[in-house]
């Protein structure tokens, strides 16, 4: 930039454009006012129309749920009793119960949690806190999100090949739990990473500024702050595992079990499989039992989800920035 106006360099740099700005102003002299067509009534009407259509969409979704609950309750509620929960299945529909399935579901869920939670949270911490931003990491990022969308039957095939056959676990509780762990790992990883992302960078910097190592920072500040989000992600993914049927059918969970599994190598069944089995029988009495089983399963799932919401609310109130 030339320095011909006797200005200091910085002056000409910063104020030198003023002449040009005046030149542009001249070109922008105001023209006559344009005509406007507000079409206000049409805009107000279309806004209302939109509101009604979104309301209808909500109604439709809820109506389907209410219809489901109503028909299930009408069919199965009277079949529900303490005996139903504490009896093994039977070939006589009136005596059949869900003891084996309920305990199987409980064992399977706990075992799945024991496998999937440490691995999932560990992977999330690595990807979010340690891994450098490389091409490889971005590739892993995308594929974990993709894995969350893989149909569960595919995980069933994988479990059958990997755990039942290759690892020689057989059609056992441990094979089921390992398969379920694969299924929910992507969900746990994605939700735990989201929870870690919400922890403000300022907290990490404060800790590093005091001479903390990465692990000290993560353990003392980042993980506690992210815990509510991580927990609710875990619980929601476990509730998905409780409801899954296809992968367990694939690896060959039993549909008739008159005993409880006593070790990791024992055969097992779960609620959804028991329900599926009953609903495929020709006798109406078994359909009623299936409906009662669905009520128990739904109650279980709603309880678990409510727990997740409670946890989130409790900790969110505690941690505010």
């Amino acid at each position, binding site marked *: 930039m030339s320095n011909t106006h006797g200005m200091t360099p910085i*002056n000409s740099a910063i104020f030198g454009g003023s002449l040009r700005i005046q030149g542009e102003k001249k070109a922008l002299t105001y023209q006559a006012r344009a005509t406007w067509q507000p079409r206000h009534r049409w805009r107000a009407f279309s806004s209302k129309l939109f509101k009604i259509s979104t309301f209808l969409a909500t109604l439709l979704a809820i109506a389907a749920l209410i219809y489901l609950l109503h028909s299930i309750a009408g069919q199965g509620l009277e079949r529900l009793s303490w005996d139903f929960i504490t009896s093994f299945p039977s070939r006589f529909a009136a005596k059949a119960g869900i003891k084996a399935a309920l305990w199987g579901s409980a064992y399977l869920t706990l075992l799945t949690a024991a496998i999937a939670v440490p691995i999932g949270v560990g992977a999330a911490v690595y990807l979010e806190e340690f891994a450098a931003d490389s091409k490889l990491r971005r590739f892993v990022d995308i594929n974990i999100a993709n894995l969350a969308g893989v149909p569960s039957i595919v995980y069933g095939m994988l479990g059958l090949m990997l755990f039942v056959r290759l690892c020689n676990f057989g059609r056992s509780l441990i094979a089921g739990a390992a398969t379920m762990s694969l299924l929910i790992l992507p969900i746990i990883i994605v939700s735990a990473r989201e929870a870690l992302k919400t922890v403000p960078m300022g907290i990490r910097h404060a800790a*590093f*500024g005091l*001479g903390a*190592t990465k692990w000290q920072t993560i353990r003392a500040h980042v993980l506690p702050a992210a815990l509510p989000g991580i927990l609710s992600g875990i619980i929601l993914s476990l509730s998905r595992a409780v409801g899954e049927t296809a992968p367990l059918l694939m690896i060959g969970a039993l549909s008739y079990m008159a005993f409880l599994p006593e070790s990791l190598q024992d055969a097992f069944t779960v609620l959804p499989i028991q329900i599926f089995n009953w609903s495929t029988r020709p006798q109406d009495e078994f359909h009623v039992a299936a409906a009662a089983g669905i009520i128990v399963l739904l109650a279980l799932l709603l309880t678990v989800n409510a727990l997740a919401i409670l946890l989130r609310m409790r900790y969110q109130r505690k941690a505010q920035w």
Partner: protein
Amino acid sequence: MVTTNRGQPALFEPSPPYALEVNDINVCYGTSRAVLDLNLKVPEHTIVALIGPSGCGKSTLLRSMNRMNDFVTAAKVTGEVLFRGSNIYGKDADPVLLRRQIGMVFQKPNPFPTSIRKNITWGPSINGYQGNYDELIESSLRRAALWDEVAGKLGESGLALSGGQQQRLCIARAIAMDPDVILMDEPCSALDPGSTLKIENLLLELKERFTIVIVTHNMQQARRVSDYTAFMYQGELIEFGPTDGVFETPKQDLTRDYVSGRFG
């Protein structure tokens, strides 16, 4: 882009000993260079203010002094910063040990979401402090001019304090480590004038024991608290010298224009 013929920067060599020596530091974010061939000597037990317009690289320079730039993925630092005679970017330098000696106070108050007590004690406890914690808490809070306000409620959350108190808690947290140098990145920019005044008075007392480097947007603040002032523009150090000299008889036209408020 402004291209001006600035001539040689007006540099000044304060007398040793130095707490930090910055030699030919360059910091790049990807392809853009934030700090260019910068040299600066920070004498012990003084307050050095870094001033300059937004985006001139002063915060980047500050963060390169205790390797906080390590956490900015794209940042690449070349050159050396000498601390206690050794290069903090050297091969066997450990940034964790370094940050234990060179503390930091950030622009936005960032107390841990735990009790006031734990805010003070956490740093010392992970670094193997062997002394009495109650004494440490009291002396740190007293030196940060916060003790009288929080003495009865050390168990309460640090986040329950006001913004100015939170920032003094962050200063107390840094003091508790008994560092050699404290780096401050616009510590008063989020605070009201009353809290700012308290922190400025505090700085003047702290330099008895620590060396302080402070980035500030507020030229009056630089003038009130600092012994030396470094003026930066577009990543370069334009002028460095005793604060009175920089503000009253600047050697560079650019410095004069900035400190007289003609741009910024």
